[in-house]
């Protein structure tokens, strides 16, 4: 028992949580007593004796878990053991609940944790849809409804979509570039463990007097600065999620720049690596702004700084500028990694090199640059200075160009390919193309100021968001789950269940989100618990389809859980892919490679006789001329015969 509390691990983390919380609480009480203030300040926006423990308790947990042990030892001059690999690899399920520095373990920790948040966020959404099935108030009152959509969006964005991509990339990216691990494994583990802390804070807000935070995921001031205690939990949770995401991004940047295997120059990097490079640049540049915005709101609430209080000389609209300076780039933070996944999947399952590979990479960088120059398109009707609208409209519309390049290049990749549509990940990639094009079109419409003036803050925006975030991000996430499941678990999932999952998800998604465009254009505002009776029929339809969508995800969970346990062995390279993660065993060995691979060609050289991406062991490169020489030869022969039609 004592040993358990002394060594890093869950018991000590629990103790750290308690001690951290008590320390924060004691600090506030003591300082207030010393200053002669009332000990407990319980104005709606106050509660310092809750806010400060909200910071110290999670930090206590992280210390207890062992996130800082090595650094503390080093800082205090105690001997450190650089070659201690006891925190690498997972040998039983218990190892997933430890501070583990293995990027593959961390990847799975991320994916499983974030998927749990996806389920929680999904349940909140179903509750909302149940309430909205008919006009009037049936299930929850308007205050609770406001909390439902706020927590739903916050959980989906900060605890599912942003981090799940970090998780998938954590697993595959070091393997793809031939690195033994991430550049900073301990920082990587810390980044992961900050996420559950953000989750605890978001969920804890449900216990706060006045209910969970309810100012929307956008938390506009001064609604948020005057809101009850729950809002503070949002402000704090975002700090942990944001810090996690910045630390991971730095880790990816350094890993990608410095740890690529010999021979992997920038133009030989798989597009997933390019995508995460671009995403990380966005995260590092933008995320500090949301952290700042939420700290400013917290300070307005708790210590009366008046950043956003007009009557005290503050500037109300500046909150929106700071918020969107993060949150617009954030929508690409939530999309670019998905672009990377789709590129890998389409190339592999269509057995064809990516059409226009370099332009694909350049388009990603173009999006990164433009993404920082469009934020005010969320503020066309906000009353901000009018001159900024047209320039921001032009940059917004220009983003459609690199986005279009990507879509057409994927389509170009499908031509003259050998399309394996039976694999679920390919289905999701193709489904993504359809839904994302629709989301892009509605985005361009929103970008045009006169149209936005009418449909801003209506269900049309809700439809757009979900076409890009569900039809875009979530489809690519499933795409990636199915594609790398055999690599991560060494087992094969059930393709038939996968196909059922895909079709139900597609139908549910289209049925749920297409009608939202219509009711939005006709006059239904967003974020409402009740609406005019004229929208009743469509809302009922939407609710029915949303339940189909919800049930479909249970099929996915069943498929993944059962296949992980009982699925047939997958083999090292079931998709016959070229990138390096497929050239090691499934799951890969603890240290990834016995010998660092040597990269000798592009990542997608399908159909090029004799071409290879990487050589795993020096020596076999000389003897093996191509992976499947016979088949490759047959393919080019067949292709030649078909060529030159009329």
């Amino acid at each position, binding site marked *: 028992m004592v040993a358990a509390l002394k060594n890093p691990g869950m018991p000590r983390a629990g103790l750290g949580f308690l001690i951290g919380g008590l320390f924060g609480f004691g600090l506030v009480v003591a300082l207030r007593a010393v200053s002669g203030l009332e000990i407990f300040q319980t104005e709606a926006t106050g509660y310092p004796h809750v806010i400060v423990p909200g910071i110290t308790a999670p930090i206590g947990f992280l210390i207890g878990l062992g996130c800082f042990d090595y650094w503390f030892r080093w800082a205090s001059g105690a001997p450190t053991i650089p070659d201690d690999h006891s925190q690498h690899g997972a040998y039983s399920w218990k190892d997933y609940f430890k501070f583990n520095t293995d990027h593959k373990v961390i990847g799975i920790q991320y994916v499983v944790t974030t998927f749990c948040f996806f389920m929680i966020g999904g349940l909140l959404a179903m509750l909302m849809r149940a309430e909205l099935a008919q006009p009037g108030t049936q299930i929850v*009152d*308007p205050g609770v409804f*406001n909390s439902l959509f706020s927590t739903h969006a916050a959980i989906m964005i900060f605890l599912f979509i942003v981090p799940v991509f970090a998780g998938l990339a954590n697993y595959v990216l070091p393997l793809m570039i031939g690195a033994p691990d991430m550049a900073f494994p301990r920082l990587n583990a810390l980044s992961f463990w900050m996420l559950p802390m953000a989750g605890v804070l978001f969920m804890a807000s449900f216990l706060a007097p*006045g209910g969970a935070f309810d100012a929307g995921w956008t938390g*506009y001031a*001064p609604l948020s*600065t*005057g809101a009850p205690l729950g809002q503070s939990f949002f402000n704090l949770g975002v700090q942990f999620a944001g810090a996690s995401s910045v630390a991971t991004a730095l880790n990816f940047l350094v890993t990608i720049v410095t740890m690529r295997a010999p021979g992997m120059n920038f133009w030989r990097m798989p597009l997933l690596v390019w995508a995460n490079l671009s995403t990380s640049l966005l995260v590092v540049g933008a995320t500090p702004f949301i952290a700042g915005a939420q700290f400013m709101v917290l300070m*307005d609430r708790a210590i009366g700084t*008046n950043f956003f*209080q*007009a009557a*005290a000389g503050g500037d*109300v609209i500046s909150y929106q500028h700071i918020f969107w300076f993060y949150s617009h780039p954030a929508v690409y933070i939530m999309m670019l990694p998905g672009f990377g996944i789709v590129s890998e999947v389409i190339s592999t399952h269509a*057995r*064809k090199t990516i*059409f*226009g590979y370099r*332009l694909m990479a350049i388009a990603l960088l173009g999006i990164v640059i433009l993404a920082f120059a469009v934020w005010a398109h969320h503020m066309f009707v906000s*009353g*901000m*200075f*009018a001159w900024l609208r*047209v320039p921001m409209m032009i940059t917004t*519309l220009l983003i459609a160009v690199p986005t*279009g*390049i990507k879509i*057409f290049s994927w*389509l*170009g990749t*499908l031509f*003259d390919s*050998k*399309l394996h*549509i039976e694999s679920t990940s390919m289905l999701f990639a193709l489904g993504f193309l359809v839904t994302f094009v629709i989301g892009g*079109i509605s985005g361009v*419409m929103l970008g*045009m*100021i*006169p*149209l936005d*003036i*009418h449909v*801003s*803050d209506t269900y049309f925006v809700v439809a757009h968001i979900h076409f890009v975030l569900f039809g875009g991000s979530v489809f690519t996430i499933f795409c990636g789950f199915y594609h790398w499941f055999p690599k991560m678990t060494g087992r094969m999932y059930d393709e038939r269940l996968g196909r059922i999952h895909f079709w139900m998800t597609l139908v549910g998604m289209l049925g749920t989100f297409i009608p939202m465009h219509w009711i939005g254009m*006709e006059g239904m505002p*967003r*974020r409402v*618990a009740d609406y*005019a009776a004229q929208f009743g029929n469509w809302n009922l339809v939407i609710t029915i389809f949303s339940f189909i969508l919800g049930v479909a995800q249970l099929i996915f969970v069943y498929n993944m859980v059962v296949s992980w346990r009982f699925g047939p062995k997958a083999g090292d390279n079931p998709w016959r892919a070229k990138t390096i993660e497929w050239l090691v065993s499934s799951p890969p060995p603890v240290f990834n490679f016995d010998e660092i691979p040597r990269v000798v060609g592009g990542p997608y050289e*399908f*159909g*090029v006789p004799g071409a290879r991406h990487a050589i795993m062991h020096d020596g076999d490169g000389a003897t093996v001329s191509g992976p499947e020489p016979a*088949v*490759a030869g047959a*393919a080019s022969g067949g*292709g030649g015969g078909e060529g*030159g*039609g*009329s």
Partner: protein
Amino acid sequence: MRRAVNRMPLPMKDMSLSTFLKGAAIAGLMTLVISLVMVNIDWLGPVYSSEKEDIVTLLNVMIVLSSLVFSIVMVMMVYAIWKYRAKPGDESDGEPIHGNTRLEIIWTAIPTVIVIFAGVYSTIVLNDIEAKADNGKIMEVDVTAQQFAWRFDYPEQGVTSTELHVPVGTQLDLHLNALDVIHSFWVPEWGIKRDLVPGADLPGGDDIDDTVTVTPTEEGVFSVVCTELCGWGHATMRAAAVVESQDDFDAWAADQTKIPDEEDVSSGVPGGKGAGVFDDRDLTDD
């Protein structure tokens, strides 16, 4: 050998001109059908202001352009799936085509032209809908929002009301202000929307664009809808917007309460820690 493959003259190896033309014809037909159907639907509901008429035209142009983009993508995708689907057991690879510079330039340039057109056209429409009336007949209304109610003051008539009454065909200049949190003014039938920002009337609010213009063209009773989340009662924060003849309006205005002389403009503006804003808020649980 790889070079030779790279330099293939045609973008898609076995795509003949006639296939291409057939695809283009199908995409064109699809665009036509989708556009014809969609342009004839009243997506935006009733169009009862001259500003909204411009917006509807813009939407229709966008529908045609979007249908074109959507049709091209769908035709390309369906053709590729139909034509290049691997037969069961076929383990071979596709053609090693790495790209085609001409094609890549085309699909960079054409979307650029389309979006620049959309941007210029939108700017023109924006200027039109924000232009002042030619006849110079403009009526001013001060709109004030507060959780969860609206107030409309008529400085010319010197009256105040909780309903928005306006004469048909007169351009309105609505001056927007909020007393507590941000709200947003929207009459769906008029198609215009703008946030009401607390502090817009204070000296520090000079930068806030708090005037929005609209010219109602149709008589009737509509709703002013709050479209910015403002708290507990957001969903039901509505007021009547009554568009009537000039005579009816004058008669109505004569009947309304006068604006009190000393108006307490700054009352309720949240200061410090949002003092007072949420005092009367219904905190349901505990």
